[in-house]
C-alpha cells in the first residue's frame, strides 16, 4: 500500500486528524497526524487488516527550530509496505501519548527521545533518562541547547 492510500484512508476514518501528506523529497512519505488522535491512529494502523503495520522500525525526535516533531517509521511484516507517521509538537511542554502499548519496541526509543529532546510521553510504562545520567541538566539534541561549563564541579 502506498503512503498516499494510507493518508486517504486515515482522512476518511479520522477526518481532520490526518492533516498533511509530506511526499515531495520524503523517502518514505510522511502522514502528518494531530497528536491528540495518535493513540487511536496507531492502533488502527497496527490492527487494520489492510494496513497491518506491526513493526515500528524507528522512532525519532526532531527539532525543526520553530517546533518539535516525533517521527515514526512503520513497516508491515505481513504486507511488506512502509509509511512514515509524524506529529508536530509545540516548543513549550512538548508531549504526545506513548505508543509502547501498541508497539513495545517504542519504549527504549521514547526514553531516548525524552532524554535528548525533553519530549514527554504520558502513558509510557517506564519513562526515564536512558543515555545521559539521571541528574543531567537540559536536553542536548535541542537546537538551542547550551553546553554546560561544569558537571559536578568537573570542567567539561
Amino acid at each position, binding site marked *: 500500500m502506498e503512503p498516499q492510500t494510507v493518508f486517504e484512508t486515515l482522512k476518511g476514518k479520522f477526518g481532520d486528524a490526518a492533516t498533511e501528506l*509530506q511526499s*515531495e*523529497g*520524503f*523517502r*518514505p512519505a*510522511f502522514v502528518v497526524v494531530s497528536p491528540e488522535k495518535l493513540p487511536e491512529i496507531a492502533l488502527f494502523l497496527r490492527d487494520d487488516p489492510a494496513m497491518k503495520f*506491526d*513493526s*515500528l*522500525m*524507528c522512532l*525519532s525526535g*526532531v*527539532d525543526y527550530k520553530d517546533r518539535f516533531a516525533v*517521527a515514526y*517509521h512503520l513497516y508491515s*511484516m505481513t504486507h*511488506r509496505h512502509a509509511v*512514515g507517521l509524524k506529529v508536530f509538537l509545540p516548543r513549550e511542554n512538548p508531549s504526545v501519548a506513548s505508543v509502547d502499548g501498541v*508497539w*513495545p*519496541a517504542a*519504549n*527504549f*526509543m521514547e526514553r*531516548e527521545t525524552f532524554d*535528548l529532546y525533553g519530549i514527554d510521553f504520558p502513558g509510557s510504562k517506564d519513562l526515564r*533518562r*536512558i*543515555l*545521559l*545520567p539521571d541528574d543531567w541538566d537540559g536536553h*542536548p*539534541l535541542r537546537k538551542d541547547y547550551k553546553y554546560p561549563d561544569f558537571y559536578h564541579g568537573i570542567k567539561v
Partner: protein
Amino acid sequence: MTRPAEALPTQEMLINMGPQHPSTHGVLRVLLRTDGEVVVNARPDVGYLHRALEKIGERVTYAQFMPFTDRLDYLASMNCNCAYAWAVEKLAGIEVPERAEYIRVIVSELNRISSHLIAFGSFTADMGAFTPFLYSIRERERVNDLFEDLCGNRLTYNFARIGGVSADLPPGFLEKTKEFLDYFEPKIDEYNKLISYNKIFVHRLAKVAVITAEDAIAYGLTGPNLRGSGVRFDLRRDEPYSVYPKLDFDVCVGSGERGALGDCFDRYMVRINEMRESVKILRQAIAQIPEGPVAAKVPRVFKPPVGEAYFRSECPRGETGFYLISDGTGNPSRLKIRTGSFVTMNIFEKVTVGLMIADIVAVIGSFDIILPEIDR
C-alpha cells in the same frame, strides 16, 4: 536447635552486574533482583559509552561523518560505513557505479563473517569453552589482513564514500579473498563438531530465553535475533538494496532443533549458518564483479536537496537505520541512528524473568549486543 526451613527469613537480593564484567560485552550494567539464584527482574542500564554521535552529526558535513560510523559498531565497521553511504545516497538520489556496489557487498559480507566469528567466539567463551575463541580469532585475523591490504586499517576502516568507495581493490585482493573462502568454509563444520552440539553447551542454551515470533516483531528485534525466532525476514532479500537482488542466498532461520523455537541456541545457530551464506554471496560477487569506476562524481561541497530519508540495511547485529533530514546546507539538520542492539535491549527485561543468574550471560551472548552501538 533446628528451625523449620519456612521459618527462616528470606529476602530478595539486589546484585549489580557490570558495568565492568567480561561477559557483558562492554560496559553494560544490569541491575539484578534475585530470589536466591533465580532472577526476579533484570534491568539493563545503558549509556556509559554515550559519545553524542547524533549531536556531532549535526555539526560536521555529510562526508566528515563517515569516520564516526566506524565507531558505531567497531566489529562491523564496513557494514556501518556502507549503511551510512547508502542512506546519504538515498537522500540525495546519487547513482553509484556498479563496481563500487560490488566492492561494498564484498567488504560487507567479509565483515559479517568476521563479526559473526567474534559473536561465536565470545559466546562460547562466555559459556565456559575458551578454545573456540582462539579458533575464531585465528580466522578473523585473515579477514583483518585482507582489510589491511584494502585500506590500511584493521578495525576502523573509513572505507566507503558518498557515491562509492575510497579506493579500488588492490591487485590480488579477489584471489586472496577466494583463498580465504576456500580455507574458511570447511572450518564452519569444524566449529560445529568442536562445540555447537557439545552436550554441555547445548544444555546451557536450549529452551533458555525463548522469544516467540510475535514478540520478536513487536519488540522490534532485527537481524539474527529476529530470524532466530523463525521469522524469515532479511533486508538484503526483502527490501533489496545495492546488488543483493543479483545474488542468490538463503535466509537462515531458527528451527527449534533443541526443543524451543527462538531460544538462545537458535539465535546462535542462525549466526553459524549465516557465515556459510556469506561465503556463498562472496563467491558469486567475486565471479560477477564488473570493471569500471569505483566512485560517482559528487561535488566537493556536497549539499543534498531539502528532504528526509530513512534507509536501513542488514548489519550483523540487525537493522542499522539512518534517518537523515537535510535543510539544504552542507550539514545534516538531523541524523538519527537506529541500531539493532539498542532496540534489542528493550526485550531483555521481559525474557530474563525466572532465569538463573548464569543464564543472563547466555542471553547477553545470544543477543550479540555491542555497546558502542547501543550508547552511540
